[in-house]
């Protein structure tokens, strides 16, 4: 349909010159407009990637959906069940456990560090007997589809560097985001959509903001930059034609533009002019493709029921989960969600419950939905925050109201699909939930494992910039083989 319209709008001249164009540049270039043409020049970018010979081995996952829980949800009220903390409620955190490890400035001045257990109960679910808190009843139902990692650890203790570390592999600097790395390494599956899309939502708990550098292309070409989708009228910036103009009017203008630009090409011979013509065509196709994929109104009742009624309210976490499925299904390589509001320094039992309520059903629905479409096997879904929270109370302390400070030394996240071993619980923390006692997984290991699932050796996905070959995993990272199917 869209193709017909495109063809129909072309006059004879234009058709001639477009065919000349495609002969000149080759069908490969026309086939991959959003990613740099592999065969065009010999910039470092292209040669590096060609040399990298991706995929390095058969990929399990083709796409990633990352449900980032921004602010750091407490592992102790979600997946890391520590009854000892309830038994020793109010007792001082033993120095033998803390071992002088650093604290943030928010609690380092506290005169005591009283242990506090989860106000919310835990039960075991599924064949894996995984413990899940009562705040996550929907996630509890899919535990046999997911792999819970209870032994994540990171290096940063504050939000900004910790988030930046998770997304770019470095706490500071302007390194490419993991979505940009994948766009660079694997390119796009759909020529009419960006390969890296970003969706934002806001919860009811204490929020911490997100920053566009989290989805930056860094030193990679800016086509790899995450494209932020908005819940407003323009799902992608400047996507909609202005009032008073319909598709055929736009088509006419683009045809004239193409002819004029072609004249300019005749005069100068600069190949960039032809690229420009192609980019305008691509923009035109995006104008059709993006609204189609972001239109959630046609989803059947069963889907709305699955994700919850909020999924019809644009900009909510539920709507973003559903949109993530649609984008992913349409070949978007990396869909990055951020949901704010998980920073519970105080009022944790209450705020955490609200946050869980906003996210639990839709997160689980996404897994179920992908599974019923046969897409879960090739889609890696990740759920988690930037660090964990302390086992001791921050601020005023009571059994039913308390807060928890940042804790980078141990926290939980889960992954599903895309070659991850379902129905498993990996890693262990000590009885206090403070230190990891078994199978630690560092952020670099997590990145290495994710890339492995996508068929990429993390040591060989490199980009040379200012004299150095950079990697998402910097100079570290090990694939956690136990997590793989």
């Amino acid at each position, binding site marked *: 349909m869209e193709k017909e319209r495109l063809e129909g709008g072309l006059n004879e001249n234009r058709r001639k010159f477009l065919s000349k164009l495609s002969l000149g540049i080759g069908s490969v270039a026309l086939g991959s407009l959003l990613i740099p043409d592999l065969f065009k020049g*010999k910039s*470092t970018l292209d040669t590096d990637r060609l040399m990298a010979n991706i995929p390095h081995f058969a990929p399990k996952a083709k796409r990633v959906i990352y449900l980032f829980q921004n602010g750091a949800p407490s592992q102790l009220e979600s997946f890391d069940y520590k009854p000892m903390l309830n038994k020793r409620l109010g007792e001082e955190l033993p120095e033998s456990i803390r071992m002088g490890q650093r604290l943030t400035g928010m609690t380092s001045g506290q005169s005591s560090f009283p242990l506090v257990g989860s106000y919310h109960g835990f039960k075991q679910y599924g064949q894996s007997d995984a413990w899940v808190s009562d705040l996550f009843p929907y996630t509890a139902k899919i535990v046999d589809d997911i792999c819970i990692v209870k032994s994540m650890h990171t290096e940063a203790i504050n939000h900004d560097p910790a988030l930046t570390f998770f997304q770019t592999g470095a706490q500071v600097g*302007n390194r490419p985001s993991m979505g940009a790395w994948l766009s660079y390494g694997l390119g796009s599956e759909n020529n009419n959509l960006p390969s890296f899309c970003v969706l934002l939502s806001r919860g009811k708990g204490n929020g911490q903001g997100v920053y566009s550098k989290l989805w930056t292309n860094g030193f990679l070409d800016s086509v790899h930059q995450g494209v932020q989708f908005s819940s407003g009228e323009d799902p992608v910036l400047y996507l909609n034609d202005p009032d008073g*103009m319909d598709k055929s009017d736009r088509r006419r203008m683009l045809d004239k533009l193409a002819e004029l630009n072609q004249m300019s090409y005749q005069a100068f011979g600069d190949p960039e002019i032809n690229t420009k013509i192609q980019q*305008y065509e691509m923009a035109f196709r*995006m104008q059709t493709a993006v609204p189609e994929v972001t239109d959630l109104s046609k989803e059947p009742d069963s889907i709305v029921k699955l994700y919850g009624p909020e999924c019809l309210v644009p900009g909510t976490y539920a709507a973003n989960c559903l949109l993530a499925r649609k984008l992913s299904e349409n070949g978007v390589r990396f869909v990055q969600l951020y949901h704010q509001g998980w920073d519970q320094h105080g009022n944790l039992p209450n705020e955490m419950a609200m946050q869980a309520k906003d996210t639990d059903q839709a997160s689980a629905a996404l897994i179920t939905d992908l599974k019923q479409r046969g897409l879960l096997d090739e889609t890696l879904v990740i759920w988690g925050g930037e660090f964990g929270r302390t086992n001791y109370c921050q601020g005023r302390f009571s059994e039913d109201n308390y807060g928890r400070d940042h804790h980078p030394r141990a926290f939980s996240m889960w992954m599903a699909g895309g070659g991850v071993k379902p129905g498993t619980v990996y890693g262990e923390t000590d009885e206090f939930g403070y230190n990891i006692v078994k199978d630690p997984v560092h952020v670099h290991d997590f990145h290495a494992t994710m890339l492995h699932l996508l068929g990429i050796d993390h040591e060989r996905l490199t980009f040379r910039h200012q*004299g150095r070959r950079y990697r998402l995993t910097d100079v570290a990272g090990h694939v956690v083989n136990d997590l793989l199917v």
Partner: protein
Amino acid sequence: MINRLLYIFLLLLSFFLYSCGEKGDSSGALVSADQISYNFHVRPILSDNCFACHGPDANKREAGLRLDTEEGAYAALKETPNAHAIVPGNPSKSEVVKRLESTDDSERMPPPSSNLKLSDEEKEVIKKWISKGAKYEPHWAFVPPKKADLPKTQHNDWVKNEIDYFISQKLTQIGLAPNEPAEKLHLLKRLSFDLTGLPPSLEVIKAFKQDKEEGALERVIDTLLEDPAFGERMAVLWMDISRYSDSYGYQDDNIRTQWPYRDWVIHSFNRNLPYDEFITWQLAGDLLPDPSKEQILATAFNRNHKYTEEGGVIEEEYRVEYNVDKTNTFTKAILGMTVECAQCHDHKYDPISQKNYFQFYAFFNNTPEKGYEGDVSVSKPAKTPIMWIERDDLGDVLSFVNHQDTSKIMVSVMEDFRDTLRQTFILDRGMYDAPTVEVSPSTPEAILAFDEGKYPKNRLGLAKWTMSPENPLTARVFVNLMWQELFGVGIVKSAGDYGMQGDLPTHPELLDWLAVDFMESGWDVKRLIKKIVSSATYQQSAKVTKQKLAKDPDNTYLSWSPRIRLSAEHIRDMVLASSGLLVREIGGPSVKPYQPEGLWEASTSGRGELAIYRQDKGDNLYRRGLYTFIKLTSPPPKPIIFDGSNRDLCEVTRGRTNTPLQALAMLNDPLVLEASRVLAVQLKENHGGQTHEALEEAFTRIICRTPKKEEFELLEEFYKEELERFKAEPKEMLSTLQVGEIPLEDNMKTPETAALMQVVVAIYNLEEAITRT
């Protein structure tokens, strides 16, 4: 001296061997040639493949072998003392060659685990070099530049100044000829955007077309260099370098007031402050004897980096972070050295040790700056140390600061402790809480030793060392930046990395000639720019043939003038200026023009003054791109779409991409639409119903030349189509015209205006509109 001559000789010889920046291809041609240059052919291979384990980093050195120095490479091997890594003149006895060629995985170098591999050509280069005596040379960038004699040229009618001799020589060597001079109006547009970031006005175009007298071009150049827009144009580059922003960054990202520094940069370029003073003031204006407030304001350069206001951070961790940023910015932007690796360990490729790094760092470490001054609830627009700009200053020494009301302004600037000295330690792995050995301020010997007899051990001493004529880097780095601004790519492509892994200069002698000439001129920036734009190389036409593209696809040798897409800021400026919307006010607080709704609101933590985007009204909607408010966590979207820096860190080079998002931003940005409507009204007023004249004026204003006949016919055809459409659909006509805040008179709400507006939108969307031709 003999070494020096030999070095130049080798460089000269290497020119015709060295085909382009990509090492892979260049070595192919080399093997057959007789001469191999260590700097240009061998070191890139060794550096990229060997130095990480056998280079300057003593802690990571394998088998005690070091290949980056002659002594190391010739010495007996530690593990097998009867063998040598390199035996000059004897490749077959050189262990390096054996290892490179070994088929045994446990012997082969580089080891398979490194994922590195030498091509056969690269191996041949190494062997050839060894058989010729394995001569090492000092790294080219660490040898002070000298002016070479101008080479001979075969293009006597073409050359205009010294630059052209160097360009011409290389073109001849690779069998290309330069282009003829560009058409007059192409050149006018090129000069106008390159020097002021603005298109030439209709009057200027007309006057220049008619000026047939000798020196017309030079008069245009001089006028443009004296235009205050020159300073604004140069400031765009310097804002990227100095990572200027209007907010603190990090999560809460509250407002800050550094814009008086931006006004100073504009002012300094406009009054042609010599580059040595420009840099000295920025590095150490506060340490000059009896410093003026202007000199202190310049030091804000060191304070433009991000500041955290996140509750609970560890103060020292961030104080260190800020100092690291200061150190990295200074070294990258001014010395062209990427040193941040050495924050954590000795540099793997360059002779910069971790000690060297912290010696640089020590220069910046003696300020009363704090890592944390409280969270966003107590945020102030500047952080200690602070300079106050009072009302009196504005009428006096700081008259260039565009401040309209009577309030005092605070700016974050530099200051040193007077009586005490903060100790500096090497930080193990760069960690703030792991100090090891104490160091004092100094500079790497490999670049230029710090003469403690001559220079004080503080930032002023550092500035003097930096601007010393013996410093091999400073002048080269700046002339290269200017070259990059005028040709799109520097003579050294990696403008922020002159180290072993950086790109080699495509025209080393030209770079050196310009650097020395720049110093000899007293660091005269405008003179340097005038020199470059007066060259035949700069002024040649941008037309490119298939033959030229095939021979030199990246235009490394400049046989045609590169067509360069305008920078994000100048695309905005072009739209505003050509439509007559531009408000030409210089400096002042940054402004908030149209921006798609909800961007700040979607990402904010909800705290601080910048949680909600409050768009400006009136004149502030139409200021130059340089003045658009930069909120670090959500930078203005259109500049980012057009490859602008996100200002997170010092950047010296922008990318230039061509993407569908850019097409959408030109087609649908309300500013482009409003400018088109305003221009359409203007055209109606100027020309009434004379469509031909109206279209010609629109095209000339935007594209800066008169349309050709066939271009004109297409525009007219489109105009007629649109006119028919709007006549038939008055509703579409009205909604088309309803865009932007500039009011529209009722008598202009006609199908003619709307049709003209659509043609103008189309012209703005031509590739040539946003390209310097």
